[in-house]
């Protein structure tokens, strides 16, 4: 392999881990000890506000990491505050159950908002949340008998004592708020690296196409994220309202939601403690400077500009990079513990060599795919041979990638039938991933922010199977990725990324593997190496491979069956040698004689 392999020394990983842990401990200690230093009433109030902002921001980060920017987090906090206020004041409920109900009501509203804006992304989604926040404010202002109208509610009681701890004391309230922040961080952890759901959600936010291809149920997961994030918002809002002992619509102007966004981005959405750092900085700095509301606004604006021009990941990653540089560490992001095991002798799989006469996994009868009025694929009759490497070739625009897209449920099955193991089905990305169909893409889609090992492990886990360490190790060593297993995928060479994408697809022991031009852009040495790897992987796994390629010498060498597509139709099919001397095929490539 080329000399560009980046080796990751063991001690780097350990040092980085250690530094991360030290940093987290330092942050926690200073947060806990803060009231001892800032002990006057004013500063204690600021601390409470800061802790609640941290809670709010951590909750928002859950949705941001799932790929949606919400401009309504302050609104959910307002909903929570009003709900618990009403329950306690008008219905005489105890505070603690009211707090829980406030969170749950906010979660319900969050899910409703999520449902209405499911199809929206990016800018449209932000506008929808922004509009929603305006609507809520108008309702709160107008519904005077219930909400107190423009002036809001006041006289909200402080939470009752627990075990003799009085929450009239601002310091105790601070620790209560800190506890809420800690719970929020735990929820955030569960929604990222901590659970399978969280890992799927993270991948969804990084690359939605890849996530769906790996079987992540996008809609469902996003709604869960909204629910959790709004619940946290509601709880934080309730705690805030009962601390200030009042709430009014002007507390949750749309600009307040923008501030929460600023806190998340300032600290760093992708790191667990990032939003906390963001909340600390964005709350403390204006307070320390005794900034007026306007100066705070200018400060926040300048911060956003600095963020987008200079440090697009937030303050915490910036700090982390700086500290790493002091210790001479680069490209590491160790989140999983690394314990390499000895490579097993054989690829662990449930499959055995295919027997002739088995029902074909994939079969197509007069399949058609239309985009609008244009028939991109037509009259596709194909019974794909199990356990073989099937080549799919054809000129540009013939429809080869579209064919893959139909198999994985991304392109529409407009006509004809698709059979899986004899049964007619309508493919969706999630269902096909669960059935055991995995694919690579023309432009290698890997998870740039994850290490090689993490990415391949996710490739195994997300489609629904448990990642078997034995298989992962086998793959990593077969793909010659051992020395870079802990390197961030984004920093790899073009060839290494290809290897990782194949590793991710094979990690789930897929029944059918779709490879879309895996050799594109590789030089001769890399082409030979990867071709051999593909052969070896196939022989060990006994899976069915569909290979789109333009390097015809490779196709001729490793494919046992060849299908030629031209302008959406199959023009030849069969053994490679026969297909290659077919007149129609020659004409499609070399033109009329």
């Amino acid at each position, binding site marked *: 392999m080329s000399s560009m392999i980046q080796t990751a020394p063991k001690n780097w990983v350990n040092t980085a881990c250690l530094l991360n842990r030290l940093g987290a401990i330092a942050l926690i200690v200073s947060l806990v000890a803060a009231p001892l230093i800032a002990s006057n009433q004013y500063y204690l109030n600021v601390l409470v506000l800061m802790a609640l902002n941290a809670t709010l921001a951590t909750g928002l980060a859950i949705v941001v990491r799932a790929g949606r920017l919400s401009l309504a987090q302050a609104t959910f906090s307002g909903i929570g505050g009003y709900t618990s206020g009403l329950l306690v004041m008008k219905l005489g409920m105890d505070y603690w159950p009211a707090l829980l109900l406030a969170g749950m009501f906010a979660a319900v509203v969050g899910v409703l908002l999520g449902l209405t804006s499911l199809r929206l992304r990016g800018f449209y989604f932000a506008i929808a949340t922004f509009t929603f926040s305006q609507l809520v404010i108008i309702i709160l202002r107008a519904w005077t008998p219930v909400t107190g109208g423009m002036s809001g509610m006041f006289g909200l009681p402080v939470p009752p004592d627990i075990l003799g701890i009085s929450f009239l004391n601002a310091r105790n309230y601070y620790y209560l708020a800190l506890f809420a922040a800690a719970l929020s961080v735990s929820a955030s952890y569960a929604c990222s690296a901590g659970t399978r759901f969280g890992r799927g959600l993270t991948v969804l936010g990084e690359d939605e196409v890849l996530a769906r291809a790996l079987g992540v149920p996008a809609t469902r997961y996003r709604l869960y994220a909204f629910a959790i994030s709004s619940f946290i918002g509601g709880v934080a809002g309730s705690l805030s309202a009962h601390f200030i002992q009042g709430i009014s619509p002007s507390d949750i102007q749309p600009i307040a939601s923008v501030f929460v966004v600023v806190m998340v981005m300032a600290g760093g959405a992708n790191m667990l403690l990032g939003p906390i750092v963001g909340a600390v900085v964005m709350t403390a700095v204006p307070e320390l400077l005794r900034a007026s509301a306007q100066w705070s606004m200018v400060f926040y604006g300048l911060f956003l500009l600095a963020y987008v021009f200079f440090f697009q990941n937030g303050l915490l990653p910036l700090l982390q990079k700086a500290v790493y540089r002091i210790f001479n560490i680069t490209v590491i992001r160790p989140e999983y513990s690394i314990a390499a095991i000895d490579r097993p002798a054989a690829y662990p799989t449930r499959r055995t060599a295919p027997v002739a006469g088995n029902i074909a996994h994939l079969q197509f009868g007069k399949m058609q795919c239309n985009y609008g009025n244009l028939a991109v694929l037509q009259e596709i009759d194909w019974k794909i041979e199990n356990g073989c490497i099937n080549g799919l070739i054809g*000129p*540009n625009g013939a429809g080869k990638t579209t064919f893959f897209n139909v198999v994985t449920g991304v392109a529409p099955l407009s006509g004809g039938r698709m059979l899986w193991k004899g049964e007619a089905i309508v493919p969706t990305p999630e269902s096909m991933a669960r059935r055991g169909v995995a694919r690579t893409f023309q432009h290698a889609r890997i998870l740039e922010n994850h290490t090689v090992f993490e990415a391949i492990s996710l490739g195994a886990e997300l489609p629904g199977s448990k990642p078997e360490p034995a298989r992962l190790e086998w793959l990593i060593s077969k793909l010659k990725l051992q020395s870079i297993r802990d390197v961030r995928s984004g920093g790899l060479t073009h060839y290494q990324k290809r290897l990782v994408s194949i590793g991710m697809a094979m990690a789930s022991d897929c029944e059918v593997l779709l490879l879309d031009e895996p050799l594109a852009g590789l030089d001769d040495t890399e082409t030979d190496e990867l071709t051999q790897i593909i052969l070896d992987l196939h022989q060990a796994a006994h899976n069915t491979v569909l290979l789109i390629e*333009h390097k*015809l010498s490779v196709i001729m060498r490793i494919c046992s069956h060849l299908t030629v597509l031209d302008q959406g139709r199959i023009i030849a099919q069969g053994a490679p040698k026969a297909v*290659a001397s077919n007149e129609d095929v020659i004409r499609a490539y*070399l*033109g009329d004689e």
Partner: protein
Amino acid sequence: MNDVPVLSVINLQSRHDGALKLSDVSLHVAQKELVSILGANGAGKTSLLGVISGLFKPSAGEVQLEGRSITALPAHEIAKAGVGFAPQNHPIFPSLTVDECLALGAGNAKLETFVLFPNLKIKRNQLAGFLSGGERQMLSMAIAMLNSPKICIFDEPSSGLAPRIVSQVFEAIRVIVDNGVTVLMVEQNARTALKIADRAYVMEHGRITMSGKAAELAENDHIRRAYLGL
């Protein structure tokens, strides 16, 4: 007769996302020639045209138009200097009518186009987005010729088109050259390209591997082998 080639490419090297797309590519196109570049997908043909037209900058090497270096110029300056490039898959302006597309150039460009492509004259008031594949290709080529360029560059003019339309397109290209326009053409459809071209280059894996008169290359077995792996 002017000796300076209309287009010269000298030792071009280019990378994309770290992958090497072009290594040490050199070629030239003389006045009134029709030169074709052949090669399989991934050979680097489109990357080459991307660099010549100015959409990408090379990591090394030079591109000259009539002896003048144009490598550092932005794409729109290169177009104004006289390079008329029609990219792959016939990109046009879907929400403009055929007439409006052609009106983007100087006045007589429209008339010349209608002489060359009478089909387009019939469809002149139709939105470009609703043209058929063949008509779009004609329009795309016409757009490339709007400013009376010194050289026209066509990227896979036959791709995605039915064989009957393909022959119409190639006929049109031959007529364009016969009228004195210099053309550089990238094609996967090797046999037909070699029938109408004067000279050709073969690209494989980012390099030029063969070059010569089209008639000679058409007899060559290696070309057939390179495409079908026999």
